């Protein structure tokens, strides 16, 4: 049987949804890859300061190509801008900010997240492949809250939320909330609690796509986002 994948949020809708949970005044790091999209949907009227590992607070959006400056890039090495109020600092200070638990939120991608909050997002452990960790391990243990942005399942349909990570860990018991195309799931005291669920699935289907037992918030709400 070839079950169709339930249609949940698009990647940009998921970025929009995560952005709604970032409060006014927050200091936030958006990990390289998908999480950068969250920056496109930060709600108007909130002052949110974006941190970049290479030494920036107050990072602004991507510039027009003609204004790009190769000495002003983000952690993904893409050109960025500085907002009024921005600050630049060296690498040791940048990671003192991270490790010292001064960031309120970081948003990271994931290969796997375990029910106890373990995160695997830097290596599939494939032998011979060039490994690269960057700042992921520092961010995972450093930010007050770690949001994971991920598809609910792999392209092959395997659950990315699992009982125990089979890939090498980035950090142990670090994830606070998992945002997927199908659900928003809080990780508390080693348990998963679904706070929002996409209309494309019911509880049984969502549980079937998840590799660890799910609990349900008393006020379970639909996971929705505008067309973005």
């Amino acid at each position, binding site marked *: 049987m070839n079950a169709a994948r339930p249609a949940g949020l698009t990647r940009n809708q998921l970025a929009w949804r995560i952005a709604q949970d970032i409060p006014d005044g927050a200091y936030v790091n958006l990990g390289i890859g998908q999480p950068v999209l969250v920056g496109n949907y930060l709600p108007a009227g909130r002052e949110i300061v974006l941190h970049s590992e290479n030494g920036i607070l107050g990072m602004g959006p991507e510039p027009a190509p003609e204004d790009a400056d190769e*000495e002003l890039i983000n952690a993904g090495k893409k050109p960025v801008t500085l907002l009024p109020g921005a600050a630049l600092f060296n690498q040791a200070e940048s990671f003192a900010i991270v490790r010292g638990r001064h960031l309120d939120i970081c948003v990271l991608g994931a290969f796997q997240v375990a029910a106890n909050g373990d995160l695997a997002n830097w290596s599939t452990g494939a032998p011979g492949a060039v490994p690269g960790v960057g700042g992921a391990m520092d961010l995972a243990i450093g930010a007050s809250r770690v949001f994971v942005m991920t598809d609910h399942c792999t392209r092959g349909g395997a659950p990315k939320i699992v009982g125990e990570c089979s890939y090498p860990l980035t950090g142990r018991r670090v994830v606070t909330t998992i945002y997927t195309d199908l659900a928003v799931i809080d990780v508390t005291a080693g348990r998963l609690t679904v706070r929002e669920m996409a209309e494309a699935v019911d509880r049984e289907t969502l549980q079937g796509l998840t590799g660890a037992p799910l609990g349900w918030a008393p006020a379970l709400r639909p996971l929705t986002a505008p067309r973005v």
Partner: protein
Amino acid sequence: MIDKRVADIAEAVADIGDGATVLIGGFGEAGSPTELIHALIDRGARDLTVVNNNGGNGHIGLAALVEQGRVRRMVCSYPRSSDADVFRSFYEAGKLELELVPQGTLAERLRAAGAGIGGFYTPTAAGTVLAEGKECREIDGVDHVLELPIRGDFALIKAETADRWGNLAYRLAARNFGPVMCTAARVTIVQARRLVPLGGIPPETVVTPGIHVDRIVTVPDPMSERDAILRGDRYP
């Protein structure tokens, strides 16, 4: 009189010998001391250990140093990128040793070396494969990993402005690893875009105090790594 200026870039790297550990500043192309790296290639030193956040891009700068077979071992946090074919092929062929270090731990190990700290416990990487073989200890209920300093024989750094005492200021996010690497090497060699008289950098905006710098060479118009990679440039 203190005058750390050297006449040309070849002289700046003339004593970097085989087997040296070289700290190379920069985060991707931002802050890469590309001209100093090219001078090091011309100098011919081999069997180097290189510490840099990345593994070099395209066929210039650090990637060219690797491609010329001069690097035995690299210490970095993220040698993967879309233009890192040289690193990948050397690594996959077993011609390059890699010590992978989380980015913040890399910065702090360099800082520790420059600050006379014998090591530090960090929660980063605790319980992961990157902590294997390292001393671990629980502090305030949190697992920590003992990390040791990384010292360089030489550091190659790009700055925006320098004076003859070696005081430095950096441009935008090109600062990155410069300030910690300057403190962590026995000999710190800086290419600066602009040389100014003493006092030309207002004291409260000096980022690296000159005490950490040994040699200054002026490179008024440093190459853009991004443009060079887009053009497909190679060095030599």
